[in-house]
């Protein structure tokens, strides 16, 4: 079966800045992929390339189509929620539903109404009059009523309170996701998505730093809360990151033997956030922090 997203040596330059610098991706169906990176790392550019909203150099196929040429065909199978502001503010709810129904062959009004009936959104309301959370609920109801193969979410829960955020992801996971679909998420709120991700991509300065499944990540990286007496021994094992928490040194190891690690302290699964800091953070700033704490 063809991959949902296939990219090879993807490049995009804005003047001298390289937003994408040789990106390779191969995402099969049935995955939930987190595309994580600091601001300006190229996340949005990557998403825009996938959605046919920007030009690029290199090879890119989404569901077998070239997004820069076949955006309108591609959008029959791809849905997209950017951060909350993008529903037209002048429109009324029923107008947006009407439009989507007439323009989207895979849209089901029935399903959309089912989701909307669980919210407080009125058909007659203007989008302008809805709260941020309600706009996201409306957009999610529209998208979940479309039988698409790829859903792209760009900071979908930005600026929402925790209740909305939790509900958003639980709806997505329980009612929408299945093995035929792929979800690609970018977000800064890594903690909230990490338990639903099947794959993780870290992007920095237009390059992919990590691109593997969560299982591989948990096999490869281990976090150890080092016992004080083993500190020197642990440091000699070349941890890729070290931080201090309540006087305990916590180190992250890349491909270290489990037996050796058990000797120097307690092993944990590293969280995506810690991994992010370790792999993407500024090296010098880290060292300063550790020295300051020690």
């Amino acid at each position, binding site marked *: 079966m063809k991959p949902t997203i296939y990219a090879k040596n993807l490049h995009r330059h804005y003047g001298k800045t390289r937003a994408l610098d040789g990106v390779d991706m191969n995402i099969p169906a049935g995955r939930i992929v987190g595309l994580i990176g600091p601001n300006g790392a190229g996340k949005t550019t990557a998403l825009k390339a996938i*959605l046919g909203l*920007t030009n690029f150099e290199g090879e890119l196929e989404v569901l077998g189509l070239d997004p820069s040429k076949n*955006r*309108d065909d*591609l959008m*029959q199978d791809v849905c997209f929620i950017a951060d909350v502001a*993008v529903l*037209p503010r002048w429109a009324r709810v029923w107008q947006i539903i009407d439009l989507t129904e007439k*323009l*989207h062959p895979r849209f089901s009004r029935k399903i959309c109404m089912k989701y909307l009936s669980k919210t407080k959104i009125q058909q007659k309301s203007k989008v302008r009059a809805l709260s941020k959370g309600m706009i996201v609920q409306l957009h999610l109801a529209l998208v979940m009523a479309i039988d698409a193969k790829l859903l792209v979410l760009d900071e979908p829960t930005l600026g929402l309170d925790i209740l909305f955020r939790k509900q958003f992801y639980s709806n997505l996971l329980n009612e929408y996701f299945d093995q035929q679909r792929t979800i690609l998420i970018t977000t800064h709120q890594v903690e909230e998505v990490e338990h639903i991700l099947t794959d993780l991509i870290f992007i920095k300065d237009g390059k992919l730093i990590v691109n593997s499944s969560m299982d591989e990540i948990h096999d490869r990286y281990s976090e150890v809360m080092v016992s004080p007496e083993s500190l020197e021994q642990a440091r000699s094992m070349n941890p890729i990151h070290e931080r201090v928490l309540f006087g305990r040194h916590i180190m992250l190891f890349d491909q270290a033997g489990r037996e050796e690690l058990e000797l120097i302290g307690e092993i944990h699964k590293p969280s995506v956030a810690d991994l992010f800091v370790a792999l993407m953070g500024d090296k010098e700033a880290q060292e300063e922090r550790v020295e300051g704490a020690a």
Partner: protein
Amino acid sequence: MNTNSLSRLWIMMRREVWESPFSFKWTPVIVVGFILLFTILALIIGARVDNEMVFTKDGIRQFAEMAVEQRSLLLYGVTISISAIFTQVMFVVVVFYLAGCLYDDRRDRSILFWKSLPISDTMTVASKILTAIVLAPLVYLAGTILIQILIMLIATCYSFLAGVNPFTTFWGPSNLPSMWLLLLFGGLVQGLWLLPLYAWILFCSSWAPRLPILIAVLVPVLIGIFQQFWSFFSDFRFSTENIMLTILERIGRGVVPATIEWDQITDGSERLTRPAEEMFMSYGSVVDSLFSLQMWIGIAIGIVFIVASIWFRKRATDS
């Protein structure tokens, strides 16, 4: 184009009306209201001045006794002038509509929603330009028809007052239905006539980083000024050819339901047109205009700008 594309195009054009209800719904209603208000005010003042309405009744009776051709001409003149008000208001509305149509959604980022729908950029741009040259004339023609009927109804009341037959006096000679057909045909042809200007504004809207309306107006004005300076400093005289004159002439011909001899006006010659039937829009004049060289040069320019707008729309995102 199959029925599916047509129905999609139709919902896209309805979308434009939803987005700009003021331009395509309320403005024609307001114009109808204003004309009605002024007509009624004039009649009230007339009734106050004219005691017992003697002169009014007499006037109507005299009108009823005129030759039918003359009555037709007068009624035609009045009713078709009303349509001119609508066409001119529509022109202003459409100019502002087009300046915003490919710009507003880039500014408020809703372009990301529109681009998430399976609609080609060609279809999007087509829906905007068709709204300008087909939908707007239809809506404003509806307004014209409404106010014409209302005024004829008022005339009918007065004719009862004066004791003349309203059907032979007013309705018959006014020939309204045939005028409506003519206005429909003429309005669509005038839309084509204005296509190069409309497409230019659409084009500005498709790429302008801000203030597309200002860019759309300023560029031809600056070119016009430059042309004048150039010919003044190179030949020591002002040029007779100027882009601004060309544009103004095109606007002028595009917004009046008449075949005014524009050369005479722009020459400043004294032989201005007198009120006569050939002055008003007719099938002959509309067909002449449709098959004129100027029309097709304009359409060609329009198509170039539309294609360029589609090119920019393809590349447009929220930033």
